[in-house]
């Protein structure tokens, strides 16, 4: 019997064996006990104890989220060292980890209570649609670096696990109103209650209205206002002491305005225009968690999500059905986790002037399984974790994500860990099946400046049509990562250091060609004009120049048919390396300070004639200083200072300061006043216009007030 079969047999039958368990608790603090899972096995793929994990992790508590004064998830993520969160305008964000932030390609897997919110159309996250009441968040766990083995594909750069509070802990009615200079209002009402001894529930409704910014890039009036209405609901049922059923749903309707730089379909030049996009989405998740024994548990989760979005560039309608099963078992001093998943996404994109589909294919299927074993070679001191996730998708076939980690805790306070893993990013729908009309290429851009004077006057402003073409030759990007980390925890201070090196094959790039190719008859003109050609070093485009010089009619006839294709290709390599360091110190009972620094360098190695799609070689640097001061029993002040360089985003480096004051006025009411982006004037955070058509706006210093009331 092979080792794999033996492991599977043990996994299936182990629940009924008598096994040892650890009763040691890290702390007896009340809040920590409220947060402690009865079982050591983690059914929800949650971090049991961040300091024991062989990965670069960071946890934001509900208290820190509340004190920050943030009003959205992207703003909260800006508090995490190593996360690149760039505001594009008042609605859109580009967010990533260990790599350049991008609106569409983040290589981040984002989960809300175990439900993936990945958009298969562009393989990214619709951050603007993530509208959960922040006061109902239990915590946010961030894993910087590959999380594919346990969490799934497209987690090569990290995992963000957003966990909301159990409804047992929100059995009251709460209301929150926020307003400010960049927020007309955001009003949330939430009611939670008990269902006798059967369980508990909560429902919430949020309405949000965002004004335009004051200044836009380019010479256009800002238009980045938006309105959204969201309903959320959750039900937790205790079917028995061992069987729990969670049902969660949400519905959202949004109207998002903005400015876009789009391509004229006749002249292929660009113009700036206001647009309005409308989005509707809803999702429903059901999860059953079952404790099989003291040392074993299983979970079955089924999720359905639907999105209908229309904007100036595209119209999409997509739905996804996800089925996930997982079992976790302790066998002696080892823990075995295994699971299977299936996802079916149905995608419909209507052709627009700018985006059209090359195939009628509408289905994206994925299925696979994972197996992970954790073994304590020396109890409480040395742990080894090995595992693999294999997943099939109908675009690129089978993909595998093996992983090995070692965690060594020589003392109670310190932990050294190392890992090697392979992650996979499967192409998005857009990369595979779409054609995207972009800004045309001016003849004056491709003809050597020395010869531009030879162009007929009528063609001096001419632009050749250009499209970005997806292709079924696009392969999955595979990344091999090596990481090393060290953690030290004392009563008053802690240190967390992570270093990484990632080598990616089949990174996304662009090649260019003409279609149709230049006619063979063109060569006649080269021969006939050999005297002109001599010494000028003609290339393909120069032959075109020659054609246009001597036969204007044939030249314009050809130009009207030709298209420059920028073909997506996966022939490049990408090397990324860097690290994060976070030092946290407690000064007495009232002051906590944290200093974080992260640096990521990425270098592309493109074959000849291939260029980058998302950003080019760069180094990202971010300093983050956070201080929280308890001014009194019911007042806190939080300061967040940051410095980030901007070369990767075509903007200046910037620094800023955020101040947030919290006052628990009574048991029922809490007031928060926050100022953001002090110390600098208006700034652009993201200006990679080649990557997104959205015209960014200037992020300005702002003020907000928030009142939270319990009824």
């Amino acid at each position: 019997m092979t080792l794999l079969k033996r492991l599977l047999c043990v996994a299936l039958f182990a629940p009924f064996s008598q096994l040892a368990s650890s009763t040691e608790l890290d702390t007896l603090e009340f809040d920590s006990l409220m947060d402690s899972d009865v079982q050591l096995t983690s059914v929800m793929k949650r971090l049991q104890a961040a300091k024991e994990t062989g990965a670069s992790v960071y946890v934001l508590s509900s208290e820190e989220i509340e004190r920050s004064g943030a009003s959205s998830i992207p703003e909260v993520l800006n508090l995490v060292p190593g996360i690149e969160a760039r505001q594009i305008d008042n609605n859109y964000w580009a967010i990533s980890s260990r790599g350049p932030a991008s609106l569409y390609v983040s290589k981040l897997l984002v989960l809300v209570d175990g439900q993936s919110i990945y958009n298969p159309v562009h393989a990214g996250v619709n951050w603007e649609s993530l509208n959960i009441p922040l006061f109902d968040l239990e915590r946010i766990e961030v894993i910087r670096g590959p999380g594919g083995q346990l969490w799934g594909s497209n987690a090569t750069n990290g995992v963000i696990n957003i966990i909301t509070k159990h409804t047992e802990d929100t059995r009251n009615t709460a209301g929150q109103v926020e307003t400010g200079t960049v927020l007309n209002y955001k009003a949330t009402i939430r009611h939670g209650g008990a269902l006798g001894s059967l369980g508990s529930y909560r429902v919430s409704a949020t309405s949000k209205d965002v004004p335009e910014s004051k200044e836009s890039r380019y010479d256009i009036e800002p238009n980045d206002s938006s309105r959204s209405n969201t309903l959320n609901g959750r039900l937790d049922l205790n079917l028995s002491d061992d069987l729990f059923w969670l049902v969660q749903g949400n519905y959202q309707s949004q109207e998002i305005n903005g400015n876009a730089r789009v391509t004229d379909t006749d002249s292929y030049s660009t113009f700036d225009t206001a647009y309005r996009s409308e989005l509707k989405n809803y999702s429903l998740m059901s999860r059953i968690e079952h404790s099989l024994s003291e040392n074993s548990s299983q979970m079955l989760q089924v999720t359905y999500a639907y999105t209908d979005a229309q904007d100036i560039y595209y119209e999409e309608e997509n739905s996804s059905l996800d089925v996930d099963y997982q079992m976790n078992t302790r066998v002696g001093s080892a823990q075995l986790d295994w699971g299977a998943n299936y996802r079916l996404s149905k995608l419909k994109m209507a052709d627009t002037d700018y985006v059209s589909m090359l195939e009628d294919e509408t289905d994206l299927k994925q299925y696979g399984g994972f197996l992970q074993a954790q073994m304590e070679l020396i109890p409480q001191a040395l742990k080894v974790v090995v595992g693999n996730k294999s997943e099939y998708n109908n675009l690129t076939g089978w993909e595998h994500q093996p992983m090995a980690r070692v965690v060594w805790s020589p003392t109670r306070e310190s932990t050294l860990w190392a890992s090697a893993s392979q992650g996979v990013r499967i192409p998005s729908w857009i990369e595979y099946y779409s054609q995207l009309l972009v800004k045309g290429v001016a003849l004056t851009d491709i003809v050597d400046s020395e010869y531009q004077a030879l162009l007929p006057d009528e063609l001096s402003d001419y632009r050749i049509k250009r499209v970005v073409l997806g292709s079924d030759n696009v392969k999955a990007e595979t990344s091999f990562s090596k990481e090393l980390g060290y953690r030290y925890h004392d009563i008053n201070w802690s240190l967390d250091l992570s270093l990484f090196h990632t080598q990616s094959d089949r990174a996304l790039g662009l090649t260019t060609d003409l279609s149709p190719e230049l006619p063979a008859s063109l060569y006649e003109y080269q021969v006939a004009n050999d005297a002109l050609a001599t010494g000028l070093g003609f290339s393909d485009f120069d032959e075109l120049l020659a054609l246009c010089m001597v036969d204007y009619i044939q030249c314009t006839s050809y130009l009207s048919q030709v298209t420059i294709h920028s073909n997506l290709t996966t022939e490049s390599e990408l090397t990324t390396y860097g690290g994060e360091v976070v030092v946290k110190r407690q000064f007495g009972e009232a002051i906590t300070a944290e200093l974080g620094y992260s640096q990521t360098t990425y270098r592309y190695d493109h074959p000849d004639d291939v260029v980058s799609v998302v950003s080019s070689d760069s180094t990202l640097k971010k300093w983050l200083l956070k201080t929280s001061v308890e001014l009194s029993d019911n007042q806190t002040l939080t300061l967040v200072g940051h410095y980030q360089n901007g070369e990767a985003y075509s903007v200046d480096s910037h620094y800023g300061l955020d101040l947030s004051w919290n006052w628990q006025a009574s048991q029922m009411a809490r007031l928060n006043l926050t100022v953001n982006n002090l110390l600098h004037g208006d700034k652009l955070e993201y200006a990679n216009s080649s990557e997104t058509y959205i015209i960014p706006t200037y992020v300005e210093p702002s003020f907000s007030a928030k009142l939270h009331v319990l009824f």
Partner: protein
Amino acid sequence: MVVWLKRTVSLLALLLVVMQPGYSVASEREYAIKAGFIYNFARYSEGEWFQPAHSSEYLICSTDGRFVEIAKRTLKDQMVKDRLVVVKQIELPESGCNSLFVSATQEEPAALVHSPEFRSTMIIGESKGFVQAGGHLNFFIAGGKIRFEVSPSKLKRAHIKMSSKVLRMGRTVVEASQ
């Protein structure tokens, strides 16, 4: 599509068969967490039920030997109001206990709860209806974590004033007459 649907239904049916409640004995970890909670209930309470000036220790009692053994390990060297926490197994009701834990294995918990010896004792259970039967607090599991019900009025009658921070985190049980 049909084949996929058949496979999914089969898998769900199999899992429904497997997901029969079959595990109901409290685990060691569960008892350790509950011991931690009992300790915190005492830490965050004031009142006549425990007078440090007249006691050399804070005594937690239970008839369940397994719980006592785990609680002794978990609460070793812990202090409540500068008094060392001691965990003791009892066979019959006896005076002197500051907290009493009544496990689900206890037969006739109501009789134990109403014993005159426990008139000024903080009484915590882990069975359905325990608070309604006379207990002050009762543990239950929600979403894999320990939560509790609490009767502020019963605590008050036992001269125990519990911190509002703790009361807020529990599920308040209102007495039928209120």
